[in-house]
Protein backbone atom coordinates (compact mmCIF):
# COMPACT_ATOMS: atom_id res chain seq x y z
CA UNK A 1 0.00 0.00 0.00
CA UNK A 2 1.26 3.41 -0.91
CA UNK A 3 0.65 6.53 1.16
CA UNK A 4 -1.11 8.46 -1.57
CA UNK A 5 -2.66 11.29 0.44
CA UNK A 6 -1.54 14.52 -1.18
CA UNK A 7 -1.60 16.34 2.12
CA UNK A 8 1.44 18.19 3.40
CA UNK A 9 2.49 18.24 7.06
CA UNK A 10 1.01 21.66 7.84
CA UNK A 11 -2.36 20.56 6.48
CA UNK A 12 -2.39 17.19 8.18
CA UNK A 13 -1.56 18.75 11.54
CA UNK A 14 -4.20 21.40 10.99
CA UNK A 15 -6.75 18.69 10.29
CA UNK A 16 -5.65 16.67 13.30
CA UNK A 17 -5.97 19.68 15.60
CA UNK A 18 -9.40 20.46 14.20
CA UNK A 19 -10.58 16.90 14.80
CA UNK A 20 -9.07 16.84 18.28
CA UNK A 21 -10.85 20.05 19.20
CA UNK A 22 -14.12 18.91 17.66
CA UNK A 23 -14.01 15.71 19.67
CA UNK A 24 -12.74 17.03 23.00
CA UNK A 25 -13.68 20.37 24.54
CA UNK A 26 -10.72 20.19 26.88
CA UNK A 27 -8.18 20.61 24.06
CA UNK A 28 -6.96 24.22 23.92
CA UNK A 29 -4.19 25.75 21.84
CA UNK A 30 -1.70 28.29 23.17
CA UNK A 31 1.03 29.93 21.14
CA UNK A 32 2.35 33.07 19.58
CA UNK A 33 0.40 34.24 16.53
CA UNK A 34 -1.56 31.00 16.26
CA UNK A 35 -4.99 32.66 16.26
CA UNK A 36 -5.41 35.72 14.09
CA UNK A 37 -2.50 34.73 11.88
CA UNK A 38 -2.94 30.97 12.01
CA UNK A 39 0.68 30.48 13.05
CA UNK A 40 3.81 31.50 11.18
CA UNK A 41 3.61 28.17 9.34
CA UNK A 42 -0.22 28.31 9.15
CA UNK A 43 -0.55 25.04 11.05
CA UNK A 44 -3.42 26.51 13.09
CA UNK A 45 -5.01 28.34 10.17
CA UNK A 46 -8.75 28.82 10.56
CA UNK A 47 -8.90 27.22 14.00
CA UNK A 48 -9.57 30.40 15.93
CA UNK A 49 -12.44 31.21 13.59
CA UNK A 50 -13.88 27.77 14.20
CA UNK A 51 -13.24 27.41 17.93
CA UNK A 52 -12.98 30.96 19.21
CA UNK A 53 -10.39 32.96 21.08
CA UNK A 54 -10.87 31.02 24.32
CA UNK A 55 -9.67 27.77 22.81
CA UNK A 56 -7.17 29.11 20.28
CA UNK A 57 -5.19 31.51 22.37
CA UNK A 58 -2.70 33.99 20.99
CA UNK A 59 -0.05 33.93 23.68
CA UNK A 60 1.98 36.83 24.95
CA UNK A 61 5.53 36.82 23.66
CA UNK A 62 7.19 34.83 26.43
CA UNK A 63 7.99 31.16 26.02
CA UNK A 64 8.31 30.41 29.72
CA UNK A 65 4.83 31.78 30.25
CA UNK A 66 3.47 29.69 27.39
CA UNK A 67 4.79 26.46 28.88
CA UNK A 68 4.23 27.50 32.50
CA UNK A 69 0.61 28.48 31.99
CA UNK A 70 0.01 25.33 29.97
CA UNK A 71 1.22 23.27 32.93
CA UNK A 72 -1.31 25.07 35.10
CA UNK A 73 -4.05 24.58 32.50
CA UNK A 74 -3.24 20.90 32.37
CA UNK A 75 -3.43 20.65 36.17
CA UNK A 76 -6.85 22.26 35.93
CA UNK A 77 -8.05 19.46 33.66
CA UNK A 78 -7.46 20.85 30.18
CA UNK A 79 -5.35 19.34 27.40
CA UNK A 80 -3.21 22.23 26.19
CA UNK A 81 -1.31 22.02 22.93
CA UNK A 82 1.31 24.75 22.84
CA UNK A 83 3.18 26.03 19.86
CA UNK A 84 6.71 27.34 20.18
CA UNK A 85 7.31 29.39 17.08
CA UNK A 86 10.75 27.94 16.27
CA UNK A 87 12.94 25.42 18.05
CA UNK A 88 15.53 28.15 18.56
CA UNK A 89 13.09 30.04 20.76
CA UNK A 90 12.21 27.21 23.11
CA UNK A 91 15.08 27.92 25.48
CA UNK A 92 13.42 30.69 27.52
CA UNK A 93 10.82 28.00 28.29
CA UNK A 94 13.36 25.29 28.99
CA UNK A 95 13.21 25.63 32.77
CA UNK A 96 9.46 25.08 32.75
CA UNK A 97 9.89 22.07 30.45
CA UNK A 98 12.78 20.38 32.26
CA UNK A 99 12.27 21.21 35.93
CA UNK A 100 8.49 21.47 35.94
CA UNK A 101 6.59 19.71 33.15
CA UNK A 102 8.90 16.70 32.99
CA UNK A 103 8.85 16.17 36.75
CA UNK A 104 5.28 17.11 37.57
CA UNK A 105 3.62 13.69 37.57
CA UNK A 106 6.44 12.22 39.65
CA UNK A 107 6.26 15.15 42.06
CA UNK A 108 2.56 14.36 42.43
CA UNK A 109 3.38 10.73 43.22
CA UNK A 110 1.91 9.72 39.85
CA UNK A 111 -1.56 10.67 41.07
CA UNK A 112 -2.18 12.95 38.10
CA UNK A 113 -2.00 12.93 34.35
CA UNK A 114 -0.25 15.89 32.80
CA UNK A 115 -1.62 16.14 29.30
CA UNK A 116 0.58 18.67 27.59
CA UNK A 117 1.90 18.87 24.06
CA UNK A 118 4.57 21.34 23.03
CA UNK A 119 4.68 21.59 19.25
CA UNK A 120 8.05 22.70 17.92
CA UNK A 121 8.96 23.43 14.30
CA UNK A 122 12.41 21.95 13.86
CA UNK A 123 15.26 21.52 11.45
CA UNK A 124 16.87 23.28 8.54
CA UNK A 125 17.06 23.19 4.80
CA UNK A 126 14.70 26.11 4.32
CA UNK A 127 17.26 28.95 4.07
CA UNK A 128 16.27 30.34 7.44
CA UNK A 129 18.12 32.92 9.54
CA UNK A 130 20.06 32.25 12.74
CA UNK A 131 18.21 30.17 15.40
CA UNK A 132 15.65 28.91 12.88
CA UNK A 133 17.28 25.72 11.60
CA UNK A 134 18.64 23.65 14.47
CA UNK A 135 17.67 20.14 15.56
CA UNK A 136 18.23 19.76 19.28
CA UNK A 137 15.99 16.83 20.10
CA UNK A 138 18.80 15.22 22.10
CA UNK A 139 18.38 17.78 24.91
CA UNK A 140 14.81 16.67 25.38
CA UNK A 141 15.40 12.97 24.80
CA UNK A 142 17.90 13.11 27.65
CA UNK A 143 15.27 14.29 30.12
CA UNK A 144 13.20 11.67 31.93
CA UNK A 145 9.54 12.53 32.04
CA UNK A 146 9.38 13.81 28.49
CA UNK A 147 8.20 11.98 25.42
CA UNK A 148 9.79 13.24 22.24
CA UNK A 149 7.90 12.79 18.99
CA UNK A 150 9.66 13.30 15.66
CA UNK A 151 7.32 12.34 12.81
CA UNK A 152 8.48 11.95 9.24
CA UNK A 153 5.21 12.01 7.29
CA UNK A 154 1.97 13.98 7.31
CA UNK A 155 -0.38 11.10 8.05
CA UNK A 156 1.79 9.64 10.76
CA UNK A 157 2.25 13.07 12.31
CA UNK A 158 -1.52 13.45 12.59
CA UNK A 159 -1.84 10.11 14.34
CA UNK A 160 1.08 10.87 16.65
CA UNK A 161 -0.37 14.26 17.56
CA UNK A 162 -3.70 12.70 18.45
CA UNK A 163 -1.96 10.19 20.68
CA UNK A 164 0.21 12.91 22.26
CA UNK A 165 -2.69 15.12 23.28
CA UNK A 166 -3.96 12.52 25.76
CA UNK A 167 -0.65 10.83 26.56
CA UNK A 168 -0.86 11.74 30.25
CA UNK A 169 2.68 13.11 30.29
CA UNK A 170 4.32 15.95 28.40
CA UNK A 171 5.24 15.45 24.76
CA UNK A 172 7.75 17.55 22.86
CA UNK A 173 6.35 17.28 19.37
CA UNK A 174 8.90 18.14 16.71
CA UNK A 175 7.60 19.14 13.30
CA UNK A 176 10.21 19.12 10.52
CA UNK A 177 9.83 22.49 8.87
CA UNK A 178 10.85 21.37 5.44
CA UNK A 179 7.96 18.90 5.37
CA UNK A 180 5.36 21.55 6.20
CA UNK A 181 4.57 22.33 2.57
CA UNK A 182 6.13 19.38 0.80
CA UNK A 183 3.49 17.33 -0.97
CA UNK A 184 5.51 14.77 -2.81
CA UNK A 185 6.62 11.89 -0.65
CA UNK A 186 8.76 8.85 -1.20
CA UNK A 187 6.61 5.74 -1.36
CA UNK A 188 6.53 3.79 1.89
CA UNK A 189 5.30 0.51 3.20
CA UNK A 190 2.49 1.32 5.53
CA UNK A 191 2.95 -1.27 8.20
CA UNK A 192 1.13 0.04 11.21
CA UNK A 193 3.36 0.52 14.23
CA UNK A 194 2.82 -2.21 16.81
CA UNK A 195 1.90 0.36 19.44
CA UNK A 196 1.42 4.13 19.28
CA UNK A 197 4.99 4.57 20.53
CA UNK A 198 6.63 1.97 18.31
CA UNK A 199 9.05 2.54 15.52
CA UNK A 200 7.91 1.37 12.12
CA UNK A 201 9.54 -0.27 9.15
CA UNK A 202 8.79 1.90 6.13
CA UNK A 203 10.85 -0.05 3.59
CA UNK A 204 11.60 -3.75 3.65
CA UNK A 205 15.10 -4.92 2.84
CA UNK A 206 17.61 -7.62 3.72
CA UNK A 207 21.12 -6.16 3.38
CA UNK A 208 21.22 -3.21 5.76
CA UNK A 209 19.06 -1.40 8.29
CA UNK A 210 18.97 2.37 8.02
CA UNK A 211 17.39 4.12 10.98
CA UNK A 212 16.18 7.69 10.71
CA UNK A 213 13.42 10.03 11.76
CA UNK A 214 11.93 13.33 10.70
CA UNK A 215 12.64 15.03 7.40
CA UNK A 216 15.82 13.01 6.85
CA UNK A 217 13.74 9.91 6.30
CA UNK A 218 12.74 11.20 2.87
CA UNK A 219 16.42 11.40 1.95
CA UNK A 220 17.06 7.92 3.33
CA UNK A 221 14.23 6.46 1.24
CA UNK A 222 15.47 8.26 -1.86
CA UNK A 223 18.98 6.93 -1.26
CA UNK A 224 17.60 3.42 -0.72
CA UNK A 225 15.91 3.57 -4.12
CA UNK A 226 19.10 4.85 -5.74
CA UNK A 227 21.18 1.94 -4.49
CA UNK A 228 18.45 -0.66 -4.99
CA UNK A 229 20.46 -2.54 -7.62
CA UNK A 230 23.40 -3.09 -5.27
CA UNK A 231 21.86 -3.11 -1.79
CA UNK A 232 18.47 -4.16 -0.46
CA UNK A 233 17.84 -1.51 2.17
CA UNK A 234 15.48 -1.76 5.13
CA UNK A 235 14.43 1.61 6.52
CA UNK A 236 13.18 2.07 10.08
CA UNK A 237 11.36 5.26 10.98
CA UNK A 238 12.08 5.74 14.68
CA UNK A 239 9.06 8.11 15.04
CA UNK A 240 9.74 8.69 18.74
CA UNK A 241 13.24 9.44 19.94
CA UNK A 242 11.99 9.04 23.51
CA UNK A 243 10.89 6.57 24.55
CA UNK A 244 12.98 4.84 21.92
CA UNK A 245 11.71 1.59 20.41
CA UNK A 246 15.02 -0.24 20.26
CA UNK A 247 13.31 -3.62 19.84
CA UNK A 248 12.17 -2.82 16.31
CA UNK A 249 15.72 -1.69 15.49
CA UNK A 250 17.28 -4.80 17.03
CA UNK A 251 14.83 -7.09 15.20
CA UNK A 252 15.71 -5.41 11.94
CA UNK A 253 19.45 -5.60 12.56
CA UNK A 254 19.08 -9.26 13.45
CA UNK A 255 17.82 -9.80 9.91
CA UNK A 256 20.15 -7.46 7.99
CA UNK A 257 23.37 -7.56 10.02
CA UNK A 258 24.22 -3.96 9.24
CA UNK A 259 23.17 -0.63 10.78
CA UNK A 260 23.41 2.94 9.59
CA UNK A 261 21.76 5.75 11.55
CA UNK A 262 21.05 9.05 9.85
CA UNK A 263 19.83 12.22 11.51
CA UNK A 264 19.88 15.93 10.88
CA UNK A 265 21.05 16.87 14.36
CA UNK A 266 24.66 16.97 15.46
CA UNK A 267 26.09 13.48 15.82
CA UNK A 268 28.03 14.09 19.02
CA UNK A 269 25.94 12.85 21.96
CA UNK A 270 23.01 12.64 19.60
CA UNK A 271 20.12 10.24 19.28
CA UNK A 272 22.11 8.19 16.77
CA UNK A 273 24.77 7.54 19.38
CA UNK A 274 22.09 6.03 21.61
CA UNK A 275 20.82 3.77 18.83
CA UNK A 276 24.34 2.60 17.99
CA UNK A 277 25.24 2.04 21.64
CA UNK A 278 22.09 0.05 22.24
CA UNK A 279 22.75 -2.22 19.29
CA UNK A 280 26.39 -2.57 20.37
CA UNK A 281 25.22 -3.71 23.79
CA UNK A 282 22.39 -5.98 22.74
CA UNK A 283 22.85 -6.91 19.09
CA UNK A 284 26.57 -7.03 18.47
CA UNK A 285 26.45 -10.71 17.58
CA UNK A 286 24.17 -9.92 14.62
CA UNK A 287 26.57 -7.47 13.01
CA UNK A 288 28.49 -8.21 9.82
CA UNK A 289 30.46 -4.97 9.97
CA UNK A 290 30.91 -1.74 11.88
CA UNK A 291 27.84 0.39 12.49
CA UNK A 292 27.92 3.93 11.22
CA UNK A 293 26.25 7.28 11.74
CA UNK A 294 25.61 10.11 9.35
CA UNK A 295 24.86 13.33 11.17
CA UNK A 296 25.88 16.97 11.29
CA UNK A 297 29.31 17.90 12.63
CA UNK A 298 29.50 19.53 16.08
CA UNK A 299 29.50 22.98 14.57
CA UNK A 300 27.12 25.88 14.85
CA UNK A 301 24.45 25.72 12.20
CA UNK A 302 25.77 27.88 9.38
CA UNK A 303 24.19 30.74 7.43
CA UNK A 304 21.78 29.54 4.75
CA UNK A 305 24.30 29.68 1.90
CA UNK A 306 26.31 26.94 3.60
CA UNK A 307 23.60 24.68 4.99
CA UNK A 308 23.62 22.27 2.03
CA UNK A 309 27.22 21.41 2.88
CA UNK A 310 26.40 21.12 6.54
CA UNK A 311 23.40 18.80 6.16
CA UNK A 312 23.66 15.16 5.17
CA UNK A 313 22.29 14.66 1.67
CA UNK A 314 21.04 11.78 -0.46
CA UNK A 315 24.38 11.19 -2.25
CA UNK A 316 26.23 10.80 1.05
CA UNK A 317 23.63 8.39 2.40
CA UNK A 318 23.69 6.37 -0.82
CA UNK A 319 27.47 6.11 -0.95
CA UNK A 320 27.66 5.17 2.74
CA UNK A 321 25.12 2.38 2.25
CA UNK A 322 27.10 1.10 -0.72
CA UNK A 323 30.36 1.19 1.21
CA UNK A 324 28.82 -0.68 4.13
CA UNK A 325 27.26 -3.33 1.89
CA UNK A 326 30.24 -3.78 -0.39
Amino acid at each position, binding site marked *: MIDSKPMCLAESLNGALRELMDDDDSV*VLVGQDIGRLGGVFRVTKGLQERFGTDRVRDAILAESSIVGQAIGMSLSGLKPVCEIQFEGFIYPGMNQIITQAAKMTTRWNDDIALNLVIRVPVGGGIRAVEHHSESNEAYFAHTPGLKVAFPSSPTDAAAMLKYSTSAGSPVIFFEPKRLYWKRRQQPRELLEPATPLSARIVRRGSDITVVGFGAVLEDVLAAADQVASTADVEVVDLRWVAPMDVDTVLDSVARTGRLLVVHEAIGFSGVGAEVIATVAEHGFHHLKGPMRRLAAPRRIYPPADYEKHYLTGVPEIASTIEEMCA
Partner: protein
Amino acid sequence: MDITGHDGSRLLDVHTPVDAETQRAMLRHMLIARGIDEEAGLLENQGALDLWLSCRGQEAAQVGSAMAIGDEAVIFPSYREHAVAVVRGIDAVSLAAQWAGRTFCGWNPCVHRFFPYTLVLAAQTLHAVGYAIGQRLQNITENVVVYVGDGATSEGDMSEALNLAAVESAPVLFICQNNGWAISKPSHEQMRTSIGERANGFGVRSWSVSADDPDSTYLACLEARRYVERSASPGLIELRTTRIGGHTTTDPHASYREPDELAAAIANDPVVKYRDTLVTLDVVDDEWLDAVDAEVAAARHGLIEAFAS
Protein backbone atom coordinates in the same frame (compact mmCIF):
# COMPACT_ATOMS: atom_id res chain seq x y z
CA MET B 1 -7.90 48.24 60.54
CA ASP B 2 -7.24 50.47 57.60
CA ILE B 3 -5.93 48.85 54.48
CA THR B 4 -4.98 50.77 51.44
CA GLY B 5 -3.82 49.70 48.06
CA HIS B 6 -0.33 50.54 47.00
CA ASP B 7 -1.64 53.53 45.09
CA GLY B 8 -3.14 54.83 48.32
CA SER B 9 -6.75 54.12 47.51
CA ARG B 10 -9.02 52.41 50.01
CA LEU B 11 -10.44 49.25 48.56
CA LEU B 12 -13.07 47.53 50.60
CA ASP B 13 -13.87 48.15 54.19
CA VAL B 14 -12.77 45.42 56.50
CA HIS B 15 -13.40 46.82 59.92
CA THR B 16 -14.65 43.60 61.40
CA PRO B 17 -12.44 42.59 64.27
CA VAL B 18 -11.19 39.05 64.05
CA ASP B 19 -13.55 36.82 66.00
CA ALA B 20 -12.27 34.79 68.93
CA GLU B 21 -12.86 31.47 67.24
CA THR B 22 -10.65 32.49 64.30
CA GLN B 23 -8.05 33.83 66.71
CA ARG B 24 -7.94 30.54 68.60
CA ALA B 25 -7.68 28.60 65.35
CA MET B 26 -4.82 30.79 64.23
CA LEU B 27 -2.92 30.43 67.49
CA ARG B 28 -3.44 26.68 67.44
CA HIS B 29 -2.06 26.43 63.89
CA MET B 30 0.88 28.66 64.80
CA LEU B 31 1.75 26.59 67.86
CA ILE B 32 1.51 23.33 65.94
CA ALA B 33 3.62 24.73 63.10
CA ARG B 34 6.18 25.96 65.62
CA GLY B 35 6.31 22.56 67.30
CA ILE B 36 6.81 20.78 64.00
CA ASP B 37 9.44 23.31 63.00
CA GLU B 38 11.41 22.87 66.22
CA GLU B 39 11.25 19.10 66.17
CA ALA B 40 12.18 18.92 62.49
CA GLY B 41 15.19 21.13 63.17
CA LEU B 42 16.30 18.81 65.97
CA LEU B 43 15.80 15.75 63.78
CA GLU B 44 17.91 17.31 61.07
CA ASN B 45 20.64 17.94 63.61
CA GLN B 46 20.57 14.24 64.43
CA GLY B 47 20.70 13.28 60.76
CA ALA B 48 17.17 11.89 60.80
CA LEU B 49 16.10 14.52 58.28
CA ASP B 50 18.41 15.50 55.43
CA LEU B 51 17.41 19.14 55.47
CA TRP B 52 14.82 21.40 57.00
CA LEU B 53 13.68 24.83 55.91
CA SER B 54 12.44 26.60 58.99
CA CYS B 55 9.42 28.87 58.81
CA ARG B 56 10.20 30.26 62.28
CA GLY B 57 9.14 33.88 62.44
CA GLN B 58 6.81 33.61 59.45
CA GLU B 59 3.97 31.82 61.22
CA ALA B 60 1.80 34.91 61.52
CA ALA B 61 2.18 35.71 57.84
CA GLN B 62 1.48 32.13 56.83
CA VAL B 63 -1.38 31.30 59.18
CA GLY B 64 -3.07 34.69 58.83
CA SER B 65 -2.99 34.50 55.04
CA ALA B 66 -3.99 30.84 54.88
CA MET B 67 -7.00 31.43 57.15
CA ALA B 68 -8.07 34.44 55.13
CA ILE B 69 -8.02 32.68 51.78
CA GLY B 70 -10.12 29.84 53.17
CA ASP B 71 -10.15 26.09 52.74
CA GLU B 72 -11.52 26.09 49.20
CA ALA B 73 -8.77 28.05 47.49
CA VAL B 74 -6.18 26.09 45.56
CA ILE B 75 -2.71 26.93 46.83
CA PHE B 76 0.49 26.81 44.78
CA PRO B 77 3.13 27.06 47.52
CA SER B 78 6.80 27.82 47.29
CA TYR B 79 8.78 25.62 49.71
CA ARG B 80 8.64 27.14 53.19
CA GLU B 81 4.88 27.33 53.70
CA HIS B 82 4.77 24.72 56.48
CA ALA B 83 2.34 26.74 58.59
CA VAL B 84 0.03 27.11 55.58
CA ALA B 85 0.22 23.33 55.20
CA VAL B 86 -0.73 22.93 58.85
CA VAL B 87 -3.79 25.12 58.30
CA ARG B 88 -4.70 22.81 55.43
CA GLY B 89 -4.63 19.81 57.76
CA ILE B 90 -1.37 18.30 56.55
CA ASP B 91 0.20 16.36 59.40
CA ALA B 92 3.79 16.66 60.59
CA VAL B 93 5.01 13.38 59.14
CA SER B 94 3.55 14.11 55.71
CA LEU B 95 5.10 17.53 55.80
CA ALA B 96 8.57 16.32 56.75
CA ALA B 97 8.66 13.25 54.48
CA GLN B 98 10.26 15.02 51.51
CA TRP B 99 13.00 16.42 53.72
CA ALA B 100 13.84 12.87 54.80
CA GLY B 101 14.26 11.76 51.19
CA ARG B 102 11.16 9.60 51.14
CA THR B 103 9.16 11.35 48.46
CA PHE B 104 8.91 14.62 46.55
CA CYS B 105 5.55 15.37 48.16
CA GLY B 106 4.32 13.75 51.34
CA TRP B 107 0.70 14.79 51.15
CA ASN B 108 -2.14 14.35 48.69
CA PRO B 109 -2.22 17.67 46.84
CA CYS B 110 -5.80 17.28 45.67
CA VAL B 111 -7.24 16.35 49.04
CA HIS B 112 -5.59 19.29 50.81
CA ARG B 113 -5.84 21.65 47.83
CA PHE B 114 -2.23 22.45 48.67
CA PHE B 115 -0.05 21.60 45.69
CA PRO B 116 3.50 20.22 45.97
CA TYR B 117 6.32 22.50 46.98
CA THR B 118 8.20 24.05 44.06
CA LEU B 119 11.92 24.41 44.65
CA VAL B 120 12.76 26.17 41.39
CA LEU B 121 11.79 29.64 42.45
CA ALA B 122 8.74 31.36 40.98
CA ALA B 123 8.06 28.56 38.48
CA GLN B 124 4.77 27.95 40.27
CA THR B 125 3.55 31.48 39.67
CA LEU B 126 2.95 30.67 36.00
CA HIS B 127 1.27 27.40 36.92
CA ALA B 128 -1.12 29.29 39.16
CA VAL B 129 -2.02 31.79 36.45
CA GLY B 130 -2.52 29.00 33.90
CA TYR B 131 -4.62 27.08 36.40
CA ALA B 132 -6.85 30.09 36.95
CA ILE B 133 -7.24 30.59 33.19
CA GLY B 134 -8.01 26.89 32.81
CA GLN B 135 -10.67 26.99 35.51
CA ARG B 136 -12.28 29.98 33.87
CA LEU B 137 -12.34 28.20 30.50
CA GLN B 138 -14.16 25.33 32.21
CA ASN B 139 -16.57 27.68 33.97
CA ILE B 140 -15.26 26.71 37.38
CA THR B 141 -15.09 29.44 39.99
CA GLU B 142 -12.31 28.72 42.39
CA ASN B 143 -9.85 30.93 44.21
CA VAL B 144 -6.24 30.43 43.23
CA VAL B 145 -3.43 31.54 45.51
CA VAL B 146 0.29 31.39 44.88
CA TYR B 147 2.99 31.94 47.48
CA VAL B 148 6.41 33.34 46.60
CA GLY B 149 9.28 34.80 48.55
CA ASP B 150 11.04 38.12 48.09
CA GLY B 151 14.05 36.56 46.40
CA ALA B 152 11.86 34.73 43.90
CA THR B 153 10.41 38.00 42.67
CA SER B 154 13.70 38.56 40.83
CA GLU B 155 13.06 35.51 38.69
CA GLY B 156 11.81 36.13 35.17
CA ASP B 157 8.86 33.80 35.70
CA MET B 158 7.50 36.12 38.40
CA SER B 159 7.43 39.03 35.98
CA GLU B 160 5.96 36.86 33.25
CA ALA B 161 3.30 35.60 35.63
CA LEU B 162 2.31 39.09 36.80
CA ASN B 163 2.14 40.28 33.23
CA LEU B 164 0.18 37.25 32.08
CA ALA B 165 -2.21 37.50 35.01
CA ALA B 166 -2.82 41.16 34.26
CA VAL B 167 -3.27 40.65 30.52
CA GLU B 168 -5.59 37.69 31.01
CA SER B 169 -7.29 39.22 34.03
CA ALA B 170 -6.64 35.92 35.78
CA PRO B 171 -8.10 35.83 39.28
CA VAL B 172 -4.95 34.86 41.16
CA LEU B 173 -3.88 36.17 44.53
CA PHE B 174 -0.10 36.42 44.74
CA ILE B 175 1.06 36.28 48.35
CA CYS B 176 4.66 37.39 48.64
CA GLN B 177 6.30 36.75 51.97
CA ASN B 178 9.15 39.18 52.22
CA ASN B 179 11.28 37.89 55.06
CA GLY B 180 14.08 40.29 54.22
CA TRP B 181 16.52 37.69 53.00
CA ALA B 182 17.16 35.56 49.92
CA ILE B 183 19.56 33.23 51.72
CA SER B 184 22.31 35.82 52.39
CA LYS B 185 21.17 38.60 50.06
CA PRO B 186 19.07 41.22 51.84
CA SER B 187 15.91 42.45 50.12
CA HIS B 188 17.23 45.97 49.71
CA GLU B 189 20.02 44.56 47.55
CA GLN B 190 17.53 42.44 45.62
CA MET B 191 15.32 45.18 44.25
CA ARG B 192 15.17 48.92 43.71
CA THR B 193 11.40 49.19 43.71
CA SER B 194 9.05 47.45 46.10
CA ILE B 195 7.34 44.26 45.05
CA GLY B 196 4.01 46.06 45.21
CA GLU B 197 5.19 48.84 42.92
CA ARG B 198 6.38 46.29 40.42
CA ALA B 199 3.02 44.52 40.52
CA ASN B 200 1.30 47.84 39.88
CA GLY B 201 3.59 48.38 36.93
CA PHE B 202 2.21 45.24 35.36
CA GLY B 203 -1.33 46.34 36.06
CA VAL B 204 -1.82 44.18 39.15
CA ARG B 205 -3.37 45.72 42.28
CA SER B 206 -1.14 45.39 45.31
CA TRP B 207 -0.97 45.80 49.06
CA SER B 208 1.93 45.72 51.45
CA VAL B 209 1.45 45.03 55.14
CA SER B 210 3.50 44.18 58.17
CA ALA B 211 2.72 40.54 58.87
CA ASP B 212 4.06 39.90 62.34
CA ASP B 213 0.55 39.93 63.77
CA PRO B 214 -1.87 37.27 62.50
CA ASP B 215 -4.98 39.40 63.12
CA SER B 216 -3.93 42.26 60.87
CA THR B 217 -2.44 39.85 58.36
CA TYR B 218 -5.71 37.94 58.26
CA LEU B 219 -7.74 41.09 57.65
CA ALA B 220 -5.38 42.41 55.00
CA CYS B 221 -5.40 39.11 53.15
CA LEU B 222 -9.17 38.93 53.44
CA GLU B 223 -9.31 42.32 51.78
CA ALA B 224 -7.01 41.17 49.00
CA ARG B 225 -8.99 37.96 48.57
CA ARG B 226 -12.25 39.86 48.26
CA TYR B 227 -10.72 42.20 45.73
CA VAL B 228 -9.60 39.26 43.57
CA GLU B 229 -12.99 37.58 43.90
CA ARG B 230 -15.06 40.65 43.12
CA SER B 231 -12.90 42.09 40.39
CA ALA B 232 -12.04 38.70 38.87
CA SER B 233 -8.56 40.05 38.35
CA PRO B 234 -5.19 39.42 39.97
CA GLY B 235 -3.87 40.97 43.15
CA LEU B 236 -0.60 40.84 45.02
CA ILE B 237 -0.14 41.27 48.72
CA GLU B 238 3.31 41.64 50.20
CA LEU B 239 3.56 40.30 53.73
CA ARG B 240 6.55 41.86 55.42
CA THR B 241 7.72 39.19 57.80
CA THR B 242 10.81 37.97 59.60
CA ARG B 243 13.07 34.99 59.13
CA ILE B 244 14.28 34.00 62.59
CA GLY B 245 16.24 30.95 61.45
CA GLY B 246 18.68 30.40 58.63
CA HIS B 247 17.54 29.78 55.07
CA THR B 248 17.91 26.07 55.79
CA THR B 249 19.40 24.00 58.57
CA THR B 250 22.71 24.13 56.68
CA ASP B 251 22.78 27.93 56.51
CA PRO B 252 25.04 29.59 59.15
CA HIS B 253 23.03 32.78 58.95
CA ALA B 254 24.62 34.37 62.01
CA SER B 255 27.74 34.76 59.87
CA TYR B 256 26.07 37.31 57.61
CA ARG B 257 23.35 38.83 59.79
CA GLU B 258 24.00 41.67 62.20
CA PRO B 259 23.63 40.54 65.83
CA ASP B 260 21.18 43.36 66.52
CA GLU B 261 18.94 42.46 63.60
CA LEU B 262 18.92 38.82 64.61
CA ALA B 263 18.25 39.66 68.25
CA ALA B 264 15.35 41.88 67.24
CA ALA B 265 13.94 39.13 65.06
CA ILE B 266 14.04 36.69 67.96
CA ALA B 267 12.56 39.22 70.36
CA ASN B 268 9.74 39.90 67.92
CA ASP B 269 8.70 36.22 67.75
CA PRO B 270 5.12 36.28 66.42
CA VAL B 271 4.13 33.00 68.05
CA VAL B 272 5.18 34.07 71.54
CA LYS B 273 3.58 37.48 71.10
CA TYR B 274 0.28 36.16 69.82
CA ARG B 275 0.05 33.58 72.57
CA ASP B 276 0.61 36.33 75.15
CA THR B 277 -1.93 38.59 73.45
CA LEU B 278 -4.67 35.99 73.42
CA VAL B 279 -3.96 35.06 77.04
CA THR B 280 -4.15 38.72 78.05
CA LEU B 281 -7.42 39.13 76.12
CA ASP B 282 -8.80 35.97 77.77
CA VAL B 283 -9.40 34.49 74.34
CA VAL B 284 -7.57 31.37 75.47
CA ASP B 285 -7.14 29.89 78.92
CA ASP B 286 -4.82 27.34 80.48
CA GLU B 287 -7.12 24.47 79.69
CA TRP B 288 -7.20 25.39 76.01
CA LEU B 289 -3.45 25.88 75.93
CA ASP B 290 -2.86 22.54 77.63
CA ALA B 291 -4.98 20.82 75.01
CA VAL B 292 -3.04 22.45 72.18
CA ASP B 293 0.25 21.67 73.90
CA ALA B 294 -0.82 18.03 73.93
CA GLU B 295 -1.51 18.24 70.18
CA VAL B 296 1.90 19.78 69.63
CA ALA B 297 3.53 17.06 71.71
CA ALA B 298 1.71 14.41 69.69
CA ALA B 299 2.88 15.97 66.42
CA ARG B 300 6.46 16.07 67.67
CA HIS B 301 6.24 12.52 68.91
CA GLY B 302 4.90 11.47 65.53
CA LEU B 303 7.94 12.98 63.84
CA ILE B 304 10.32 11.19 66.18
CA GLU B 305 8.51 7.90 65.65
CA ALA B 306 8.52 8.31 61.88
CA PHE B 307 12.06 9.51 61.34
CA ALA B 308 14.27 8.86 64.38
CA SER B 309 13.44 5.26 65.17
